[in-house]
């Protein structure tokens, strides 16, 4: 027997109302609330990543070699299985990173967008749960990121200057540091995700 027999369903402003005997009963859209909650958590996590990067870079100088937004763009690209979300995450992280630094607005945004997309594409084609794959991917993505950001910054602002040897050393260090930190964070996050599911 249908319990809603004789009940009219009225849809207004995105909310569904059941009207029975002239008295409306509100039905809360639980799916939408949970989606909003998830989006809110994601937004908070992205902001936290950028803020933590800024604070840690200031407090611990070695942290300047790390690029947490890049690591998270790659991680979510690998694990979400949703290229659109990966693109949005990479784009947002890059834009926030540009705004908090003196970099050209959009340079990191463009770079992280592409990285998010590539990571999502790679996630469906390669065995990205293998440490070696992750290590290599993070290394290559970091190198690609710094090259692209440098080129874009040089196109808009003044060139890098006569310090390419210093820049190359910094890029190599950054790629290695990101690969190692990323590997640790990926493993930790995987364990945490498995424990909560």
């Amino acid at each position, binding site marked *: 027997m249908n319990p809603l027999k004789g009940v009219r369903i009225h849809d207004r402003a995105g909310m569904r109302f059941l009207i029975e005997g002239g008295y409306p009963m509100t039905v809360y859209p639980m799916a939408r609330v949970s989606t909003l909650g998830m989006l809110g958590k994601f937004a908070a996590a992205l*902001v936290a990543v*950028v*803020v933590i*990067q*800024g*604070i840690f*870079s*200031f*407090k611990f*100088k070695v942290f*300047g070699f790390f*690029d*947490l*937004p890049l690591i998270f763009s790659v991680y979510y690209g690998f694990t979400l299985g949703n*290229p*659109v979300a990966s*693109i*949005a995450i*990479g*784009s947002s992280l*890059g*834009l*926030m*990173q*540009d*705004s*908090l*630094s*003196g*970099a*050209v*607005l*959009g*340079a*990191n*945004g*463009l770079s992280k*967008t*592409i990285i998010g*997309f590539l990571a*999502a594409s790679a996630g469906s084609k390669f065995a990205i749960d293998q440490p070696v794959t992750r290590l290599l991917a993070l290394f290559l993505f970091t190198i690609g990121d*710094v090259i692209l*950001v440098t080129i*874009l*910054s040089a*196109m*808009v*602002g*003044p060139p*890098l*200057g*006569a*310090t390419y040897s*210093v*820049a190359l050393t*910094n890029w190599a260090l*950054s790629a290695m540091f990101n690969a190692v930190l990323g590997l640790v964070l990926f493993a930790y996050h995987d364990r945490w995700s498995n424990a909560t599911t």
Partner: protein
Amino acid sequence: MSRIVAVSKRPTWVALGIALVFQTGLISIQARHRIDTSFVRVWILDSLAPLEKLVDRSTYAGFYVWERYLALIGIHDENERLRHQVEELRMQLHQNREDILELQRLRSMLSLSSSDTGKTIVARVIGRDPARSQTVTIDKGTVQGVRPDSAIITPAGVVGRVIHSSNFFSIVQLIVDSQSAVGVLLQSTRRQGVVRGTGGLSLDLDYIDDDNDLKQGDTFLSSGLDRIYPKGLPVGVITSVGPRRGLLKTVQIRPSADLGRLEEVICILEHPQNAGPDEPAQGSANP
């Protein structure tokens, strides 16, 4: 089946296209119009920097409690030593005041303007650049009078200049940034030159009138000719003088200010040297 796959992939390409067009548009706007502080940057900076400040203040409060209440063992001996030191410094200060008065008298007699650093404000460093270029974030912005190209210093020397300002926060480009340059003069010989950041921890000498008399330990002061930094502030000390490369010797300079440990900095809002060329220099010329 192939049709289904093609349809399901379409949103990805649309999203990628939109994101790329948006980011490329932002870059091209800046390239064409040279917009220093767009509304996007100001909005995000004003949104995220308070969080950075909150975390920074919490960390600072933790250290404060530790230092003020938990780590006071052996403070009595140190107190005695410092009290003695204060007495010595007080005598030295008295002597310095006399010297300053004498210097002011001599300056006014020679009709020289005083080397006042101008209107200043103290700011706290709340974050460092998450990307790889050398910048820090400070907790003062346009509301407090900090503008792009405001000079940032510490008592030890020049730190950098403001490149972006939002209402309550600013981004400072350090002098070691590879895109930064400072007009300098050698303290001992008064020869003028330009030092440039390397992107690392040191500065390079980019130009100088004559590099024959450069030696290790020499100090470079700001020349004031760049109209950003007031004249006479310590910029750096020569750490090594290498062989000639091109027209100039290879000279490495260590910044006078400790850029790795910036906590509080001084923002120079106005100073006599960054006034317009037609404006008269400040200072009395009366004998």
